[in-house]
């Protein structure tokens, strides 16, 4: 079991190296991807500026700067997720309907691992610059202090956030094993991500419940942010973040494994 884990860890780097070689095969494509990625992020920054600049309102006891901080924080786990889990979007079409999952099953490696490793979207990491800029600005306005410990907790939490998204979307992707569909539930759930970018307290009770205990996107950005915003109100939830991340990924993998038993391949 442990040996298998280290084999996969070792192979993760081998796959990544392989993937980078592929990207280098199309150098122009890579450069263009990076440039458009950067441009997109600049536009996002301008948009946020317009959205927040003229208002000095507080929403539901949250000040403009606090909301901005949460928004900035949410960019980190989301872009990590976009960078390392983009292939989940292709599971229904490329792997199940078109039968490429055959190849995955023929190798002595975890099937989810292989699917994730076959595509990495490095450009998405650029988005974190925007998140960083927003957090720096908001921290300045709010006079938040950053220590080494806080930085480590920050890194840990954004990785947890990535796995919360990862687990939820692994489960959603796995549903395609039962109901082969090109996009399916992916799109509506993608829209749910937006809810996680704002304080969960602004939503009605039902939505709050869903965002906390069913599709736990509140644990991705909002709860971790409250820690850095020195709010003690949600302390109990902050402690739960790693457990929610582990639970999300575990549930995702269990559903995935059940799903693979329903894989029916394609005709010849």
């Amino acid at each position, binding site marked *: 079991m442990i040996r*298998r884990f280290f*084999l996969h860890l*070792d*192979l993760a780097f*081998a*796959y990544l190296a*392989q993937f980078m*070689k*592929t990207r280098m*095969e*199309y150098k122009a494509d890579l450069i263009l991807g990076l440039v458009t990625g950067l441009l997109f992020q600049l536009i996002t920054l301008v948009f946020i500026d317009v959205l927040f600049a003229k208002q000095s309102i507080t929403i539901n006891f949250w000040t403009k700067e606090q909301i901005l901080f949460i928004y900035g924080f949410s960019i980190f786990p989301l872009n990590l997720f976009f960078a390392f889990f983009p292939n989940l979007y292709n599971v229904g079409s490329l792997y199940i309907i078109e*039968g*490429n999952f*055959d*190849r995955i*099953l*023929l*190798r*002595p*490696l975890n099937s989810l691992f292989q699917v994730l490793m076959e595509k990495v979207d490095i450009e998405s990491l650029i988005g974190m610059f925007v998140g960083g800029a927003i957090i720096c600005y908001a921290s300045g306005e709010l006079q938040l202090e950053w220590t080494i410990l806080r930085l480590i907790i920050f890194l840990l939490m954004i990785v947890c956030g990535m796995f919360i998204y990862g687990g939820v979307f692994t489960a959603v992707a796995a549903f395609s094993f039962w109901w082969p569909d090109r996009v399916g539930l992916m799109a509506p759930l993608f829209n749910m991500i937006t809810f996680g970018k704002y304080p969960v307290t602004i939503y009605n009770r039902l939505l709050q419940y869903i965002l906390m205990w069913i599709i736990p996107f509140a644990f991705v950005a909002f709860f971790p942010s409250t820690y850095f915003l020195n709010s003690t109100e949600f302390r109990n939830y902050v402690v739960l973040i790693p457990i929610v991340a582990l639970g999300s990924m575990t549930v995702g993998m269990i559903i995935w494994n059940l799903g693979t*038993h329903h*894989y*029916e*391949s394609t*005709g*010849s």
Partner: protein
Amino acid sequence: MALIEVENLNKVYKNFKRKEGLKGALINLFYREHDEIRAVDDISFSINSGELVGYIGPNGAGKSTTIKMLTGILIPTSGRLVVNNLIPYKQRYDYTKQIGVVFGQRTQLWWDIPVIESFKLLRKIYQIPKDIYDDRLSKFKDLLDLDPILNIPVRKLSLGQRMRCDLVASLLHNPSVLFLDEPTIGLDIIGKLSIRQFLEKINRELGITIILTTHDLKEIEALCKRLITIDHGKILYDGDIDGLRNRYTLDRSITFQLLENFDFDNLKEKLNFNSDVKLEKLDQLRLKINFSNESLNPAKIIENVIKEIEVNDIAIEEPSIEEIVGRIYSERKS
């Protein structure tokens, strides 16, 4: 004990009937009817270590479904399937290390990187020791003439080159069984021949058990001693190729090229064969005799004809394996 044991194996697909239109789509959400398709219907066979078996059947016969169950991709609906003491879909990690699989229709190599990089990654995946890897690669490289193409990305290879690389990729980890699903589909005659020779060699020298599906019956004839024929999910024939010939006796024929014009009716009367033997006058100088194996042997016919008339040349026509298999398929349908 046999290497591959298949007993009463079944695979049933449930096919949902989709209703048309928007209203139909809505109904489909809540209520679905389905048909059952029996792709593999209660088949049994066993294959010993070192065999080279051809697995044939028309499109949609259940060939690929069988291969996919044997390789662990599909889970059987019912029945027993054991290869080398492992249950393919249950013990996937251990099992996939022991088999090699090549699908003619799609490559298993990484599309955008040079072939050699794919091989290196496979070495890591299968944890092949460096010296063994080097040894095997250099051997296969020579056999299949891969040197000039190892540094080319897979997408730039021709079909024949890609196929050769796929074959090597499937063999690097020293599998005991090799499954090939239409390995020579779309290849030219030289490509086919090179792969055929290679398969023969690894089967003979390395003792790798090979199971191959194909539509090219000449390939089966050249390579395989044993043949399993499947149609509509059921096994129609399992045995050697000569046995197939004998079981499905077709008419054979001998054509005589004569030295001089002949009187057909007169000759027919003189020869006086039994009614199973049919004589036919092709033209002034050619006589064709159709007969089946059971009625008379060819030597007897030739002997009789030569006694009666002067013959310049003799041609004996055997039914091809294609004709035999074609007949099996059409018999099933009727």
